[in-house]
């Protein structure tokens, strides 16, 4: 009887968790569908102009909002790309160092330190980006005659890159450690040096897994909000220049939903459409990324 009761309680807890998730996704889809009744999917996905202001009263100026999300996607991609350019090499190289060269003692200090880096609240990264990095970049740019926007994609991307270094380095470290020593010995036994062995055997063997880890990191970057809210721009600007201000999907969701809301305006509903798009992108990245990482970890067991 007690056994059954415990079982029932545990079951209902997990059921609640699953139903809430399903409910959130359902509401996301439902509200997004409502949005797409007033704005066509085509305009949303391929339109290049984003100015989501809708009139509160019929006599206001600028009454017609434009909901082309391309500038937001491009802004997100631009910042994520900058972030990856920082974090992929730093993360992978530090993982190689930690797994192949560092002594056990050093490793036992550095790994927890990296995990602390992962534990810093993103809001802290955010104001660090906005208050320290962005002005510094702007001044640096000015001193060499480049115009760097105060809210440049570069500043947000750099700090976001630092934020995802621990993620990439920790996954890469796992993957590299999972490459069996017998392969390293085989290579060294043929007379290859340590760095030749790493370059020609260990890294090629680990590469698929590392790629999976990078996909997970991209997903993290795409969904990241606090850093870009503080350090990236608010206005949609379709550009590929990292020195200009861009905005991202997450920033626009925040902008759309902060302050007083009408719950049925296109402006508010647009947030759901953006949320759905974001969800689809990160879900695909996560599924592919974790499949690759998982498959890779199993490969040598």
């Amino acid at each position, binding site marked *: 009887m007690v056994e059954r009761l415990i079982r029932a309680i545990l079951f209902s807890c997990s059921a609640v968790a699953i139903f809430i998730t399903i409910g959130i996704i359902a509401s996301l889809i439902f509200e997004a569908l409502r949005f797409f009744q007033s704005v066509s999917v085509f305009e949303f996905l391929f339109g290049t102009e984003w100015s989501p202001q809708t009139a509160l009263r019929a006599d206001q100026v600028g009454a017609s909002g434009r909901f082309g999300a391309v500038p937001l996607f491009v802004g997100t991609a631009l910042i994520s790309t900058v972030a990856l350019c920082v974090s992929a090499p730093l993360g992978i190289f530090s993982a190689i160092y930690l797994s192949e060269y560092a002594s056990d003692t050093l490793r036992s200090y550095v790994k927890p330190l990296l995990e602390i880096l992962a534990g810093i609240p993103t809001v802290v990264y955010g104001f660090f980006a906005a208050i320290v990095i962005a002005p510094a970049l702007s001044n640096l740019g000015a001193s060499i005659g480049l115009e760097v926007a105060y809210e440049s994609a570069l500043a947000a991307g750099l700090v976001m890159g630092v934020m995802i270094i621990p993620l990439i380095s920790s996954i890469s470290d796992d993957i590299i450690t999972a490459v069996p020593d017998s392969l390293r010995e085989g290579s*060294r*036994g043929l*007379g*290859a040096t340590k760095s030749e062995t790493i370059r020609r055997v260990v890294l090629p063997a680990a590469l698929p897994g590392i790629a999976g880890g990078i996909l997970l990191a991209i997903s993290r970057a795409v969904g990241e909000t606090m850093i870009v809210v503080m350090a990236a721009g608010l206005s949609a600007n379709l550009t590929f220049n990292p020195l200009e201000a861009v905005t991202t999907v997450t920033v626009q969701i925040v902008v759309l939903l902060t302050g007083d809301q009408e719950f049925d305006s296109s402006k508010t509903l647009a947030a759901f459409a953006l949320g759905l798009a974001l969800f689809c992108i990160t879900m695909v990245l996560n599924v592919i990324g974790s499949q690759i990482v998982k498959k890779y970890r199993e490969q040598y067991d």
Partner: protein
Amino acid sequence: MMLERTHVQPLTVNSSRDEPSTDDASVAPKIRASGVNVSYSGRLAINNVNLDIKAKSVTALIGPSGCGKTTFLRCINRMNDLIEGCEVTGNITLDNEDVYGSDVDVVVLRRRIGMVFQKHNPFPKSIYENVAYGPRIHGQATKGDDLNQIVERSLVRAGLWDEVKDRLDAPATGLSGGQQQRLCIARAIAVEPDVILMDEPCSALDPIATARIEELIDDLKTKYTIVIVTHSMQQAARVSQRTAFFHLGELVEENEAKIIFTNPSDERTRAYVTGSIG
């Protein structure tokens, strides 16, 4: 039996290292170990091993687990350098050159002394790339016909060519265990070594694959000096010309294989080969 013993007597004299230049020592040892000690973080693993290894023959190292035979094998091509806390003292020479000399390039040494491991460990690359790995590293050939020739020759010698010639670009990990181990042998001989060290090369293989590897070892000894560590006394008896018995970190006895297995002089060797210890 008596005839055999008298016949081998001079060889035993040869292997005592006080008189290296007696007339009977017409064949200088390929490898000579004298006073070799190995310790792992201060714990002695092998103690004062003296052993001569003849060129172009198979020498088997036998003994119970933990007796130091693999440790000794890995001293010869300095694979023990890779293990933290491992210290080797004493002297090992290859063709009268000190293997542990300060001017020795380990890369060159390991090119001359190839190694085949207990678990077949082909790289996760194609069959071709596995064999081409060593020649590329050592710059013997980097592409084109030269490399193709080396790959073909090595696979032929390892008795694998006919089985894989139509799928050289297939991943090596798709081969059977026995094929993978022969691929590892091909990979080792692709760099033209003088010596091949084999660390229990058949321990993960079924009897048929094992038999093929043993035939291969027999063929290879015409060209290479082979040192094989094995758990199987039958295997040592089948493939080796000379056999060394290790026990508790010491080299107890080394002699012609036949003598070790039929009429050993040390009581511990007799106990091991008759199965009462080990």
